[in-house]
């Protein structure tokens, strides 16, 4: 028998976190993310970890804030309304440079909406749903296997840049099962405690550590902000990730991420088989957005098709980054928890 196992997306999120070295989970139940918490409630005690059901998403995100500031791989997960409640904490963590990991299984909105998969929180995640000039790094895997591959990277990236990271999935990835493989297991003891960690002075050379996002002197705060902008720039340079399937200089460029990209891939392959000059550009990081790569791939394209499970958010960035008014832009969206069907996508791609 192989090492491949059939696993639910949400459970894979949990197992991947455990194998990345995460031993602290703070969460509040919400469909369609609850199984992540449930899996962790069951799994963490087996590996000497701690699962806490917080009293709210506010509390969960602030517990996470504390644990990550203490230098540990820690996480929370929620879905759209719960993520809205975390915006203050996220802005704080960005400002105080705390490497927290947040999984967002997006669902239909606005408001209570429904509990089906959606991508209507692209702006919230990429433009800063909270206040201030900050960015969180947003990974957007499109299969359960990619979730598994990205989780350790997500933790490492958070710690490398001391920045909050969001892994954005959706109800569909979370609820489906797929045959997957885990080829890593990191012992948390082997993850070094950073010297900035709040862990008691005795753990870091008896010099006190302070973690704060406060700076009452506006000139100093401006300087901090420009330093943060420098960091964001470095992240844009180094961490923009994307995937591309198609011909080299496509006439039609399709842009989609996450679940929609997955639904699109077969359709793209099909019309490729029919001889169409087409390609699918799939941002793997939504922020930093792989701008340069997109602009490059879009060079040859006359028609740019953006598919999202929203009323049109990614499309704005695509236009901004391609920045060529001579091209034809086409947007197709499903806001509110409905998904594209493969045949619908085929029809769109055929034009």
């Amino acid at each position, binding site marked *: *028998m*192989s090492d*491949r*196992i*059939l696993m639910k997306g949400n459970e894979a999120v949990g197992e991947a976190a455990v194998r990345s070295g995460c031993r602290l989970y703070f969460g509040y139940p919400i469909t369609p993310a609850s199984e992540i918490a449930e899996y962790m409630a069951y799994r963490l005690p087996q590996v000497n970890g701690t699962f806490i059901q917080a009293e709210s998403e506010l509390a969960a995100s602030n517990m996470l804030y504390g644990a990550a500031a203490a230098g540990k791989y820690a996480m929370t997960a929620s879905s759209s309304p719960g993520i809205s409640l975390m915006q203050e904490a996220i802005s704080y963590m960005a400002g105080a440079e705390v490497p927290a990991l947040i999984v967002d299984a997006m669902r239909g909105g606005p408001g209570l909406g*429904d509990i089906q998969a959606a991508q209507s929180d692209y702006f919230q995640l990429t433009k800063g749903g909270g206040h201030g000039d900050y960015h969180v790094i947003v990974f957007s895997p499109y299969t359960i296997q990619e979730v598994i591959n990205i989780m350790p990277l997500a933790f490492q990236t958070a710690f490398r840049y001391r920045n909050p990271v969001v892994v954005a999935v959706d109800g*569909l990835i979370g*609820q*489906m*099962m*797929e*045959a997957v493989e885990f080829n890593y297991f990191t012992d948390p003891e082997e993850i070094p405690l950073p010297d900035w960690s709040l862990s008691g002075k005795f753990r870091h050379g008896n010099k006190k550590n302070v973690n704060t996002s406060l700076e009452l002197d506006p000139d100093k705060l401006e300087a901090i902000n420009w330093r943060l902008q420098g960091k964001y720039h470095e992240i844009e340079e180094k961490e923009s990730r994307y995937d591309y399937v198609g011909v080299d200089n496509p006439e039609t460029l399709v842009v989609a991420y996450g679940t929609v990209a*997955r*639904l699109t*891939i*077969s*359709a793209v*392959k099909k019309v490729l088989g029919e001889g169409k000059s087409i390609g699918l550009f799939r941002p793997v990081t939504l922020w930093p957005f792989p701008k340069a790569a997109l602009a490059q791939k879009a060079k040859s394209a006359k028609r740019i098709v953006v598919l999202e499970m929203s009323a049109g958010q990614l499309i704005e960035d695509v236009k901004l980054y391609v920045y060529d008014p001579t091209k034809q832009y086409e947007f197709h969206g499903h806001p509110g928890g409905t*998904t*594209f*069907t*493969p*045949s*619908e996508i085929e029809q769109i791609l055929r034009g």
Partner: protein
Amino acid sequence: MTKNVVIAGFGGQGVMLMGQILALAATEKNLNATWLPSYGPEQRGGTANCTTVISDEEIGSPVVDTPQIAVIMNNPSMEKFEKMVEPKGTVLLNSTLITIEPKRSDVTYLRVPANELAEQSGSQKAANMVMLGVMGWLWKDTFTIEELESAMVHKVGDKRPQLVEINKKAIELGYEFAKNIV
């Protein structure tokens, strides 16, 4: 090779489990597999369905809009899914419960008296396993009935060992039934 099936019925009829066992059997044969659930807007009770795709290649979409096979366990699902099956596809229906008349001429209908056969296996509730047996026959070039049964045991055995024998029986009854009518 890429195969897919949609399985639909009431919440309590075990349609989710069926789809999962099929996906597990494929996984245990080192194939790729996806299983995708879909619950109706009603939280509890109501209808539910799932889609299983198995393949020896990477699976593109786990969402299937024109399934090769639809396993249909009740009337409301018949209304919704009969029309979605791809031309030349198969509609596998639980004839014990479904009273709606089939409407298409471009698909093959297999009427399985699933509840009755289930009762023979020892439990009314094993109607889903009967249907699973029929699926085993239809997908017999992918896995053997023993492999299907073993996937069932891996899925169910831990939590409810008392059901294993009944389920096996039901799978076999379904498999035999299919063998005879197909």
